[in-house]
């Protein structure tokens, strides 16, 4: 049977690998976990979903942390597949067997997930185009001009055809009008085509400016060596000029420039080596405390931590960090996902995220652990804070933005943590006070 090629990251595959590693027979492991060998066989081939007590028993019998068995890099792929299933409920995709599908047909699963993503991007492109035809005043004016010119030609030509006895001076007049209008029509049509073309029809450009900026940042791993250690003049420009199609629209380039300018300022104030030096060895980071050491606020510290490269973080036994930011409306304005903590690309996030709690308690750092509802039930440590945007102005209420730093948890305390989701449609959590819309996922009993 085709198994996952990349280090076996599905729960069943991991259990089997670990069992083989410690040289334990299937029957022995089954006995210790209190299940039948045939049931274990199904689990090991990803045909049964497990969690809770059985996962704990198997982990104990194999001498590993439960998280080592349950948390795989497949979370993002599974989330994409669930989203694809949610988008086409009529297809009747069997969500109960989603892991078996990923385990047995990894290539096909990737294909379905990619097609789903592409469909989403194309849908967005269509919406952007429709929106443009409806709301772009330049385009509307050009279309109106072309149609008006066509109307004038049409009306004049009809008169010339219908009026057999037309006086010569009228005939000459309408002929002249048609000639003039034809020239204008040619020019108007050319301009219209130019406006429609204008390099704005490429798919990259149709993605929202935020998507383009995040795609650009992601291409660089959210880290820019050229902006570290006192960036030279023109370094931001040089980076932007290499982005090409990635930043296909003017709005995306403007937003990317702001992000990179801020990156350069924060990199100068918080050099990589100094920050790495200050990190605690292998334990949870506290961005507020770290920020205090450098004399910067927690939000700024979080942004800086999220730009640190994985190899430098590894020096202190730290895993890569995720970051998400939102404005006062709750709209996500920045997304750096983790493999096991996918962030919603379309639609709104889970309202239970500490990110949003922070908005209702401005200036107070909110630290805690959460469990991500779903297959892996991964544990994450989050630090969130809402802070005013810009400097205070007398007698003016501040506008807030919130940041949330996401660190992989260590699963040492996996019970009784608040369970949050990614986004409602693909979240299995039952009886959720934050639910906006029904989920396509049934709560897993396993």
């Amino acid at each position, binding site marked *: 049977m085709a198994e996952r090629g990349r280090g076996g990251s599905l729960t069943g595959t991991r259990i089997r690998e670990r069992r083989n590693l410690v040289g334990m027979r299937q029957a022995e492991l089954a006995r210790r976990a209190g299940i039948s060998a045939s049931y274990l066989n199904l689990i090991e081939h990803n045909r049964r979903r497990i969690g809770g007590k059985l996962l704990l028993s198997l982990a104990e019998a194999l001498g590993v942390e439960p998280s080592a068995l349950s948390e795989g890099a497949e979370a993002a792929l599974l989330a994409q597949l669930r989203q694809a299933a949610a988008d086409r409920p009529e297809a009747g995709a069997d969500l109960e067997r989603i892991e078996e599908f990923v385990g047995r047909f990894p290539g096909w699963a990737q294909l379905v997930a990619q097609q789903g993503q592409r469909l989403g991007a194309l849908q967005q492109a269509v919406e952007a185009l429709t929106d443009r035809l409806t709301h772009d005043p330049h385009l509307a004016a050009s279309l109106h001009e072309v149609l008006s010119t066509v*109307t004038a030609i049409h009306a004049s030509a*009809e008169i010339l055809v219908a009026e057999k006895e037309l006086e010569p001076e009228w005939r000459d007049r309408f002929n002249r009008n048609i000639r003039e209008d034809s020239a204008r029509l040619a020019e108007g049509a050319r301009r219209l085509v130019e406006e429609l073309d204008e390099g704005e029809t490429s798919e990259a450009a149709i993605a929202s400016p935020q998507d383009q900026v995040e795609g650009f940042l992601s291409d660089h791993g959210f880290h820019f060596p050229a902006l570290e250690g006192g960036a030279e003049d023109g370094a931001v420009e040089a980076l932007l000029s290499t982005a090409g199609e990635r930043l296909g629209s003017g709005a995306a380039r403007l937003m990317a420039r702001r992000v990179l300018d801020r990156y350069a300022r924060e990199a100068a104030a918080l050099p990589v080596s100094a920050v790495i030096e200050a990190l605690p060895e292998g334990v949870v980071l506290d961005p507020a405390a770290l920020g205090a050491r450098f004399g910067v606020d927690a939000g700024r510290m979080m942004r800086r931590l999220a730009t640190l490269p994985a190899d430098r973080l590894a020096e202190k036994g730290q895993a890569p960090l995720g970051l998400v930011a939102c404005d006062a409306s709750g709209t996500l304005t920045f997304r750096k996902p983790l493999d096991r903590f996918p962030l919603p690309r379309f639609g709104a996030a889970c309202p239970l995220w500490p990110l949003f709690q922070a908005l209702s308690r401005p200036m107070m750092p909110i630290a805690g652990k959460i469990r991500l509802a779903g297959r892996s039930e991964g544990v994450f440590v989050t630090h969130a804070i809402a802070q005013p945007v810009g400097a205070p102005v007398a007698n003016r209420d501040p506008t807030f933005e919130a940041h949330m730093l996401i660190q992989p948890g260590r699963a040492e305390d996996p019970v009784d943590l608040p369970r949050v989701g990614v986004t409602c449609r693909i979240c299995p959590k039952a009886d959720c006070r934050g639910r906006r819309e029904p989920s396509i996922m049934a709560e897993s009993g396993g």
Partner: protein
Amino acid sequence: MSKSVLVVEDEPNIIEAISFILSRDGWHVSSHSNGEDAVEAIRARAPDLVILDVMLPGRSGYDILRELRAGEGAGANLPVLMLTARGQTKDRALAEEIGASRFMSKPFSNAEVLEAVNALVAP
């Protein structure tokens, strides 16, 4: 005495063609090509019917019609034939909602204009 029509349109050759066919049909035709002072022009000339383009320099035909319908006097009930370059349902609905007597999308034929005008005002 012939009935009068005021064509509020910024495209001179459309004005010329419409003027020609309506004049031949016995109408007295005048024109106005700016949106900004169109309401004043309509009130001052008090035509029997107005042909009103939606996209005019200075002010949209929708705004002009709204003001006409909101005011006292002849403008409130004046037959207005609206011309637009977009035949979308929502444009038609908007024109009807604010009180257009009839709606026509460009490009239209001369016969259509003639038919519409004569249907709105008996010559």
